[in-house]
């Protein structure tokens, strides 16, 4: 009896986990690397939810999803900060938390340089640890 009820409950629970989901691809072509100037680019924010950030050392892609509860922060050039509209987390350009409730740095996405010189971003592979995130495949060194 208990086994039957438990089994039914578990089976019903399993029913709520879809086996196939139809969600957009996480990989996209962000255009020629050359087209990015030093600074934070919001070119892909609306379509891909990613900032492309060019520093004098290289380029990386940051997933525009607040690590608190998943809102999209806005970039403020004058303050050099990302600020989140939902609970007020502040991040610096590298993605580290300065203030507010976010528990960890923003995620960086995997980046590759295609043969054409285009930047390929894959949001399925993420990293946020200092050290790891500043090396390939999450960072591409370029000369300024």
């Amino acid at each position, binding site marked *: 009896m208990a086994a039957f009820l438990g089994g039914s409950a578990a089976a019903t629970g399993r029913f709520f986990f*879809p086996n196939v989901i139809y969600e957009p691809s996480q990989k996209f072509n962000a255009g020629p690397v050359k087209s990015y100037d030093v600074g934070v680019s919001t070119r892909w924010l609306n379509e891909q939810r990613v900032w492309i950030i060019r520093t004098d050392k290289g380029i990386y892609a940051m997933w525009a999803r607040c690590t608190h*509860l998943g809102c999209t922060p806005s970039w403020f050039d004058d303050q050099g*900060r990302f600020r989140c*509209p939902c609970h007020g987390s502040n991040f610096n350009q590298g993605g580290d938390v*300065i203030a507010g409730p976010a528990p960890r*740095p923003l995620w960086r996405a995997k980046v590759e340089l295609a043969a054409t010189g285009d930047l390929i971003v894959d949001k399925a592979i993420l990293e946020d640890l200092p050290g790891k995130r500043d090396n390939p495949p999450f960072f591409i060194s370029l000369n300024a």
Partner: protein
Amino acid sequence: MPETATPPQQNGGGFKLPDFDTLKKEVIDSQIWRSMFRGGVWKDTPRDRAAHIIGNVWLHLHPVKVRPRALHWTYTWGLGGISFMLFLILTVTGVLLMFYYRPTVDLAYRDMKDLEFAVTLGVLMRNMHRWAAQAMVVFVILHMVRVFLTGAYKKPREFNWGIGVILLTLTLFLSFTGYLLPWDQLAIWAVTVGTNMAGATPFLGNEGPFGALMGMRINNDVRFTLLGGTMVGENTLIRFYVLHCVAVPLITGILLIVHFWRVRKDSFSAAPIDPAEEKVDVWPNLVGREYIAAAGCLLAIMIWSILMNAPLEIVANPNVTPNPSKAPWYFVGLQELLVYFDPWIAGVVMPNLIIVGLMAIPYIDTNPKGIGFYSLKERPFANAMFLLGVAMWFILIYIGYYCRGPNFAWFNPWESWLNQKPAMPPTWNIFGPLEGAVPFTFKMAADIVGGRLGGLEPGVVPNLMPGWLGAIVLGGMGGFLMIGPKLIQKDIPGKTANLAFIGAMAVVAVLGKIFAGLPVMQGLWLVFFAWTGFYFGFLLPQRHIRQLEWPRYLFTMFLVLNTVAVPLKMGARLAFNVKYVLTFPTISLNI
């Protein structure tokens, strides 16, 4: 000729219009009517009145007679009845909206626009549904407050109070699931934030403490089941639609029936005016009042819906969040709480503690006094703690709603959102790991406390003292606060203790000013928040509940301390930029 004197006959004189009373009698005596409504000719005798209640499937949840006190508007304020009327309005308007609304990502928003601009009376139905939903949240909360203040949850009504707490939760859950359906920017972002909290559940969420340990990933945790995917999308919409339109209303309806049945079976709480008073007939005394309240309620919702349109933002964009992004007002308190506490605390532990705590109230409040009338004096502790909780909830809502502007930065209500606010000062932790953090010096402590934190490496959050020390200090303090009030046998004199405590905190603030340059305003905040904690967390329990036996006492103290911890942490953040009091980042334990 005498004929000319007769008055002219209507309709050529053959047929006479029957007067209303005859007509009514004919209809009521017809076989059709008699088969539908039980009972004989209405003579308005007590027996007739009783039969009207007993013989009607809808009304028979009422007793036949009630105490006159229960009829006073100022006892119930009709709050439960109005909540139910709003539930009925929501059911009817909701079903009507379902005739036009299609729950898919491509169509949902367009259907909302059609309802607003292309469907005759569509906008009225939408407005009524929206405003009645908001009103229902208000009235259910008010009803709960009324039940609490009249002590109506005490024996034998403990169980019905519990049902009520579940009904409150379901009311909020209905609002939450319904909020996604318009598929506009407000909808998708409120639900994104709301469901991400589920992802922070300990053990069961991929971002929660011990989640990774349990093998939780973004595509197999509780959030995934709620969303039917890894992001708020097509699957989420249909899930919320089914929950909102079928599952939750059904469960709510069933519980409402149980609720009403228990109200009657437990006999209504209103204390008699004089013990020997006679009961009066429910029909028409009570039912008549119910009809008046229901009609007034419907009228108010209609007028409101004609005057004001329900908001609809631009269509949902899963990549860009509106700035600022705010939850519907009844959840803004929770949103504000999330500013101060980690998601698994504010979004999972606290709501569950509130629900469990509310349900536990009738079982831990053993004070037999004050049932069936409003009495602040006979139940000082229960009333003070409950009203503190309700007040805190609405203060949080007030802050979130009126004091938060773009980037969720603090703006006073009179300040324009167009003025850029200076960037927020960096935050720091009191206890935490010292490796990699800024080493502790007296000067740094003074700078941090005095709000002069600057020149640090970006992204480095300084921890003032080591985590192990924090665990000992907080554990010791918690332990003392839990049992201290019961161990002190004599009543602490209230006034003296208050003054002494405020004086001591004032001395601390002055010392802080002299040695660390603590600004005056922060000194005042320190005194205020510390006193709040002292008064509600120590003095009141010491004076009022130390006589409880241990299990009840400990559980009550646990709830009390959790409640007062909230304003303390808020004060620490708002006045002193403290991010965490104690943090162990490796196991995501941040308090």
